[in-house]
């Protein structure tokens, strides 16, 4: 089909969808719709992981981001009951400043990514590195120490979150 393989077609369609949903996150007025579009974006990114043969990452991405974190987002927004009427309207000046800052960020990103197509990518590892078996072997043999450090980091974040969430600290 037009000289592309099925994988390339899928990549194109999923990329288009993920960018469109990501834009919709910003452009929709209603915060609930924003969150739901963000969930759809996460699903598209998970599909990208699948295309890269990283099934473990894809499923964990859905379980953690779409399944847990975004549900909490949805919780907070539903309880705060934000809608168009009660949302504070931004002044013209703050919109202008936000526009300028966003534009500058775009310039920086374009500048940083400009030369990337000239870099030759070396194919490191093999195509089945994303499968859970190989991933586990690499993670628990070669990168065991960083893995343990990350788990301590997560533990401290957990304790911190509980401390902040407590009403009174004895």
């Amino acid at each position, binding site marked *: 089909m037009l000289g592309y393989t099925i994988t390339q077609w899928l990549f194109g369609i999923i990329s288009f969808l993920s960018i469109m949903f990501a834009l919709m996150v910003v452009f929709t007025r*209603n915060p*609930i719709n924003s969150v*739901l579009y963000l*969930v759809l974006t996460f699903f598209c990114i998970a599909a990208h992981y699948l295309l890269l043969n990283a*099934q*473990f990452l894809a*499923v*964990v991405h*859905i*379980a953690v981001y*779409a*399944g*847990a974190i975004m*549900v*909490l987002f*949805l*919780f907070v927004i*539903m*309880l705060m009951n934000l809608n168009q009427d009660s949302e504070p309207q931004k002044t013209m000046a703050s919109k202008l400043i936000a526009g300028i800052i966003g534009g500058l960020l775009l310039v920086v990103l374009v500048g940083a990514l400009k030369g990337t197509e000239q870099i030759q990518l070396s194919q490191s590892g093999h195509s089945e590195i994303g*499968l*859970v*078996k190989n991933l586990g072997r690499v993670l628990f043999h070669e990168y065991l120490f960083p893995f343990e450090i990350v788990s301590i980091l997560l533990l401290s974040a957990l304790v911190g979150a509980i401390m902040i969430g407590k009403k009174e600290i004895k």
Partner: protein
Amino acid sequence: MLEFIIYKSIICTIIFVVSLGIAAYSTWWERKFAGLLQDRWGPSRAGIWGLLQPLADGGKMLFKEEIIPNVSNKFLFVLAPALFIVTAIMAGVLIPWGPSVKIGETFYALQVSDINVGVIFLLGVTSIGVYGIMIGGWASNNKYSLLGAIRASAQMISYELAMGIALIALIITAGGTLSFSEIVAAQDKGVANIVWQPLGFIIFFICALAETNRAPFDLAECETELVGGYHTEYSAFKLGLFLFAEYINMFVSSAVMAGFYFGGYNFPFAHELYQAMGLQEGSWIISLIGFGAYFTKTLIFISVFMWIRWTIPRFRYDQLMNLGWKSLLPLSLLNLLITVVVEYFRGNINL
């Protein structure tokens, strides 16, 4: 390629139809079972033993007037029940219903998809199931619906943790595989996982009750406090879909428990029986017997779900949260610790 597509379509269709059929007849069996426990007849007018009752209910749901509240977000309001039932059916693709059938030279697995991260896929699908309830509750623009939705999702998130940790212990026992069919197949050689995971099974079972919003954890639709919970504003077949999805969830989680902990299509002395009958591996009769064994276990679990519903009164909300966070989560961690020690001495873990 064509052969593959035909085979998968047939499997998909069969599992889809069976899921829906079981869900429909679960409603009938739930009433019959309630009648049995409460010393009365249950449905008896529609057909013999009331067997046409689910059809009558379905017809009633279809022909009722459909009311969409004027103030709600209409698209999300319609989307929510569809989303809920889709996620309910999705987990069914993992279940290996029986030993593979050999037709010609190839083996055909009685499973829609053997995902190599099946257990995590299962957790992912259950966590996505929350969206149907939450979106439905919010889009109804009704305080009771919102409260019901928030209760349901808080409950599902809380119990997912203990469920996940119980599953980690199960994976260690099953030999470190995340694939559903391999977990079931591993119980063919040894004993069923329940022997090594009694505590894990109890935790998983309680969490499954909570995840499917069944009594005694059905606080999301607690009539005395919340009218109808998250589906208060729903009518006609949209309400039907919500109720239906609950039964599909129940069917799938029963099948998951039967597969994870009770050997799925394996049963004691299966090989001796097959040998006595003179059956070769891959024979369709073996598949049929295996499927029958799996299905019987699943139906028994569905009946246990109902038995619990008509036995134990509903929890209070703080009791529910205390049970989830203060009992089940530490217990599941303890179970994980015990499992690791036991498996180390059984020689399944080499350090």
